[in-house]
């Protein structure tokens, strides 16, 4: 029902992210039908990125960025609501939220996803691919 063209455009833009002058690279993640678009984001180790999450669904979602351990803790943990942290943000239905994240230098694969009940299993997840070369 919605803005497929826009989503594609956003996806194309955010796949590479965009560097703002004197600011962190911005990545836009659009949520539609409980999926992240794009589901693959590229970033450099050590880079601080600004992540804009646009929730077009009529249900709440969240974004959790981190390695598998972080994802497991949120998926299986029992932590209740807490204040926003870098790389972790709730996105109410039909709203937009922003979080920042510093890409670690480590080699562990980075993931992002939503851990509201059933959402991760439904496939609401993505990958951050590290760019090692300086050409990107």
């Amino acid at each position: 029902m919605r803005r497929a063209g826009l989503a594609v455009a956003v996806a194309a833009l955010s796949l590479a992210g965009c560097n703002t002058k004197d600011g962190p690279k911005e990545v836009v993640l659009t949520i539609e039908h409980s999926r992240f678009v794009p589901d693959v984001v590229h970033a450099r180790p050590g880079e601080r990125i600004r992540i804009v999450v646009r929730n077009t669904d009529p249900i709440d979602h969240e974004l959790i960025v981190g390695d598998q351990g972080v994802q497991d803790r949120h998926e299986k943990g029992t932590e209740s609501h807490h204040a926003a942290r870098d790389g972790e943000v709730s996105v109410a239905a039909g709203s937009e939220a922003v979080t920042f994240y510093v890409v670690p230098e480590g080699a562990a694969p980075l993931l992002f996803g939503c851990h509201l009940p059933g959402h991760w299993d439904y496939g609401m997840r993505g990958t951050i691919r590290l760019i090692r070369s300086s050409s990107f």
Partner: protein
Amino acid sequence: MRRLSSLAAVITGAAALVGMMAAPAGACAGLVTPGGNVRLLRTATLAAYANGLEHYVTSFEFAGGGAEFGSIVPLPAIPSKVERAGDWTLQRLERETQPQPAFARADSAGASEAKGAEVIYETRIDALDITILKGGGDSVGEWAREHGFRLTPDAPAVLDFYAARSKIFMAARFNAQAASERQQAVGDGTPIHLTIPTKSPWVPLRILGLGLEREARIDADVYLLTAKRPSLLPTPGDSLKPGFDGQASTQLLDDLRSDKGMGWIPASMWLTYLHVDQSAGRLTHDLSIDPTGRGRVSGVAAGLRAPARPRPPVSVTTSSLSTTTLAPTTTPTTAAETATSLAVLPARSDSDSSSLAAPLAIAVAAIGLVATTLVVQRRRRDTPTPTS
């Protein structure tokens, strides 16, 4: 950031015809209780067609404990009447088509608006609050969320799936206080009868998998009563197993006709019984029905093909440089789609032309050449598993 308070599940997709009887069977729907427990819930619906009117008789089962639950049922068009149905029509159909225990056989002798979703009609039947909504998937989802329904992650896609075909939904939920005042017992069903003017008979099947894991099995029974042997899409096969296929018995029709609001049942009908046996992840379609048996089933009505989208206004520049904006139209359908959609027009046209006020006078008892009765019984083996 896990939310302990998030209880998962529940827009129960009691699809239009989710069967439920006091006995086995029944469509199960996720239910959220104040304590956070998700219980199985059985709901049932019977839909029938006569003279362009579709009759839904849906039963919602009270789960008790002060719990409230919500169900959302996609409808092909705006109902012209919403009323309490008879108490035993669904049970009689089940009894006719499913094996019964010996003792049972012996007995058988005997207005507001939220975020764009338009509230077409509201009523309370017994302790059940019924709301007929018109809107897109987003707006209906937002309305549901704002009214306490818990939407599972697949809900946005499923609501959009149905809204692309018909923007009419029925939301139903028990009012706990009203149920308490009525001393409604757990398991008590409240049958609802909706009269819906439509030319597009279809049975929502995909919604039966709402909130279920992909591997969860959908186990449902579909009963059709038509004047003639109906044409169906998809064609019955492995996942839609044909059962009974023949003339309905006079006794069955007489019994159905004698229940409240069922006087429209013709003297002769064809009974088709289908058993849905499919995983939730693969049940991505509905069932299109041509009650005339002429093969005029539609891939769109079956959910196998996306409806044509309206084209944006087209600007035409003439030689005099004036600009004309043409009215939106729809994209042309393929020859095959046109051929198969003649009798299954988009529900929108029906919806837009009907309202509750006038059609309320429509006689429900009209006897038509074509009448289809169907009941889907869904047995959910797996519960949507909230992980909070």
